[in-house]
């Protein structure tokens, strides 16, 4: 029973890490119709910026610098390179964003070398917190709480601001928003930068848990795509539900049959595609476009 509740909690925390990465991917896709393979690269840049700043000024400054740096990078990418590709066919999008991902990875390799690095966890947070029958790493709990706060903020942005309104409208009918005079261009830039900033922040915040190397981004990209497909394209709550579902599935499968833990997420994706092709919380309108 202890093992089960421990696995459930662990799945939730693991799932929240997936949600944090997938939510940026899904809002960018929802608004810009961009299949963004560079999302993993944003994670990696955030992790490295966080590492460098944290080494100089402390962990919390690293957490602040990472999303800002990555957002600025994303704005430049958006203005200089990506704009013509929004809403275009997937092949060109995959090629260009994949290209960006490769360039970023090799540039990071050039600057930092291939050696894996890790920012040491602050001593105060290396402890475990007692939760009755078992203890759980303090930093993971903090990270989970931090993801929840971040999700609330993103949700407020989407639901409560004018930009959010354009984002939501854009998910349903991009052309109509433009015909009605919505400044979808500016909103696009902001959304793209926001998605990137989230990935960068998560990269920095997760680096005391996972060591980083130039190719780290790809390791998180694949499960994030799965989460978005399972949850439903462009759907905020879909990413939340999908991420937690995938996290719990992985954690529980490890308990029963560990080698299946990686297969189960693709099995889950296949099942969702068969039974509910628009994803668990996907809007059917997206399909009909």
């Amino acid at each position, binding site marked *: 029973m202890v093992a089960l509740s421990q696995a459930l909690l662990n799945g939730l925390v693991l799932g929240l890490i997936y949600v944090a990465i997938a939510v940026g991917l899904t809002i960018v896709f929802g608004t810009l119709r961009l299949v963004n393979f560079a999302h993993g690269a944003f994670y990696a840049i955030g992790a490295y910026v966080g590492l460098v700043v944290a080494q100089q000024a402390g962990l919390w400054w690293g957490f602040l610098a990472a999303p800002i740096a990555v957002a600025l990078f994303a704005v430049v990418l958006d203005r200089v390179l990506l704009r013509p590709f929004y809403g275009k066919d997937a092949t060109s999008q995959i090629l260009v964003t994949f290209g960006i991902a490769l360039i970023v990875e090799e540039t990071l390799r050039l600057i930092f070398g291939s050696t894996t690095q890790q920012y040491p966890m602050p001593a105060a947070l290396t402890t475990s917190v007692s939760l009755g029958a078992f203890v759980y790493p303090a930093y*993971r709990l903090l990270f989970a709480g931090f993801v929840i706060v971040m999700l609330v903020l993103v949700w407020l942005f989407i639901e409560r601001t004018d930009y959010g309104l354009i984002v939501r409208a854009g998910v349903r009918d991009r052309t109509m928003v433009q015909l009605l005079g919505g400044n979808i261009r500016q909103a696009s830039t902001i959304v793209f930068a926001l998605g990137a900033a989230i990935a960068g922040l998560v990269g920095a915040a997760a680096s005391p*848990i*996972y*060591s980083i190397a130039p190719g780290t981004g*790809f390791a998180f990209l694949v499960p994030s795509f799965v989460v978005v*497909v399972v949850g439903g394209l462009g759907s905020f709550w879909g990413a939340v539900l999908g991420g937690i579902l995938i996290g719990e599935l992985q*954690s529980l499968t490890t308990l029963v049959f560990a*080698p299946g833990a990686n297969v189960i997420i693709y099995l889950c994706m296949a099942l969702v595609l068969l039974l509910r092709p628009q994803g668990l919380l996907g809007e059917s309108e997206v399909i009909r476009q």
Partner: protein
Amino acid sequence: MTHVPSTSRGRFIGGAAAASAAAFGFPGILSAQSKQIVIGLNVPQSGPYSDQGLDQLRAYNLAIDQVNKSGGIMGLQVKASVGDDQTKADVAVQNAQNMIDRDGAVMITGGSSTGTAVAVSGLCQRKGSLFMATLTHGDDTTNQACHKHTFRRYNDAYMSSQALARTLISKYGTGTWFHITADYSWGWSVHDNLAAVVNPKGAKEIAYVKLKLGTTDFSAALSQAQAAKPDVLVLTEFGADMVNCLNQAATFGLTKSCKILVPLVDEYMAKGTKDNFTNVVSTAPFYWQYHEKSYNEAKTFVRAFYDRYKTYPSNGAECAYVNILVYKKAVERAQSTDPAKLIPILETMQWNLTKGPEHFRKEDHQGVNSVLVVEGLPEADRGEGGFAYAKVLEEHNGPGVMAPLDGLVCKMETA
């Protein structure tokens, strides 16, 4: 008129599939010329074992430059054809094939995984090329999947397990053991060997959790270990995976609540895990600080490596270095790079370099040399930029811990 995509979801799913399939090989290009010997250096420069691969590459370059400066091999300059195997068997095989067919490599060396080593070994056997494996520790390379053209100097899992058990049986013999293991031939090999030694002595295995190579989040297995409260936690993980696994284990309180065993370690893993590696018991085939005290050739190598790179060689780097020197010795004795002439020489040749007298065992081409059982030092006590990472508990000589010949399943080809 704005372009409206037809099926956005389909594109996205295609994207997910393409992301999963992403894999690249970038073998270095160096064309073969007639008056030189081309050696293929096939090591991971990206992926979880890249620290180990890059350090091997440093040692290879050092050895090749030294060989070339002293007149090459039989008067021929050595050229390297370098590839990144990404710790993926298919990429490793493709690299090796390019090195042999395109660049004219007469010998392939490298590897940081038994998965890639076994795959490259099979290719080299088919192609009739020599393969001097470097960092591969699973038994398969020189036992279950042994080949006439493959030689492995690095310790195998059997040797490490025997050595570990002999040093620690009094401390670890009983109690409950929890295994977290890399899910491929190396991990299985280490687990099976270790279990075969300690279980009959009274150790009780309570879990054997296998996780794929390249796992970043170990929390599911670690929380399970935490609930099981084992006496010994065995982390059969390597490279960055081991670093992630042990560092995460520490946050679950496991480094305090149980004794941790990491069957194989190197300098980079110890550095990456910092104080979490304190008191962790492990094995290593070579430890620069230990060997340079006793062997002149080891000292020469360690100092040359340090002078060039301002860092100390990991045990995989040492194996890479020695492989080149052993190859040179064998070729000069055979006066040929033809494997048909080289193999009989490698099967009988002795050398005395960094670890005292060594040779390859004729029956399985496993290197006969010593195993160190080491224990991690607290970070504050480590010298030399963290590279002086452990104290040696015991040195076991090769013949004493090797798999007995009558237990081998290796069926060596005749050519």
